[in-house]
């Protein structure tokens, strides 16, 4: 890997961390991180004078996230090919869990408005899983890019 590309990969992981944190912040502000607030956001609340979310409204959020999250996970995990083999044995299970968490995160709201109330919990667990594993993955990519930059100071 060329040094210019190592820099790009290191910055990619920093952008990724900002992307995940801004997503979590947005979720916390707009929806809230407790089961009650998540249910109230999607099903509407008399107290807060909010309407239930429509399928159209959920699709507007789901469609761009389907493309973006798939691409983000694929690109992020594929950078593990630059990590030494013995330190990337977890890459396959990690990618499966990340893709599954992303899908549940995107589609859980449809199940919530369809009446499956337990998906409120699935939404929260999927979000937290995606955030924690995403941050863990990006930290590995960032430290590996920095490590190889340090060991190949060929600028």
């Amino acid at each position, binding site marked *: 890997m060329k040094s210019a590309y190592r820099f*790009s*990969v290191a910055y990619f992981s920093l952008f990724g961390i900002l992307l995940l944190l801004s997503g979590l*912040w947005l979720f916390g502000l707009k929806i809230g991180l407790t089961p009650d607030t998540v249910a109230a956001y999607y099903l509407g609340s008399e107290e807060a004078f909010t309407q239930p979310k429509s399928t159209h409204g959920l699709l507007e959020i789901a469609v761009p996230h389907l493309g973006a999250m798939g691409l983000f996970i694929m690109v992020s995990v594929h950078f593990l090919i630059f990590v030494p083999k013995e330190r990337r044995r977890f890459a396959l299970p990690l990618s499966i869990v990340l893709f599954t968490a992303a899908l549940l995160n995107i589609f859980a709201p449809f199940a919530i408005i369809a009446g499956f109330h337990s998906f409120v919990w699935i939404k929260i667990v999927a979000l937290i899983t995606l955030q924690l594993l995403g941050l863990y993955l990006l930290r590995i990519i960032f430290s590996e890019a920095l490590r190889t930059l340090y060991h190949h100071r060929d600028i």
Partner: protein
Amino acid sequence: MKFTLNNDHQQDRLMNSLLTGLMLFILLFLSFDLLFKSEQIGLSYATMSTTLFGDEEAYLDPLPFTSLLEIIHADTFFAMMILLTLGAVYGRVGHTKRARVILINITMVSALLSIITPLLAYYYSPLFIWFWLFSLLLWHAGAIAMSLISLWRLQHP
């Protein structure tokens, strides 16, 4: 991403034309993104300040913080994907190693600042709007330079 792993795109006509097409699309994206930003948030201190904080005299409401965060969230995604791809191509075909590293670092750091500074402007001081404006213009200029140099080098190996 094959072009990140092999060096023979100067001889490989298909890879060369694919990268040329990609660079043209990225150039268009960057140009229209600036145009869109000028409509969305403005590209001067006055218009950006009005977008963030509103204007009582003109009866303009401030931008809700969640809307600002949505803009930042989407911009982060596009910047990271565009700059990663651009960095991969420019890192292969750009000028000297030092020039490549310097341009990539300036562009990436300014892009990161353009994501963080609106939050600082919103929470701490309107003065950060200057940093926001400068970093936004700088990362677009850096990325446009990277794509133009890459285009030139792809056509004149």
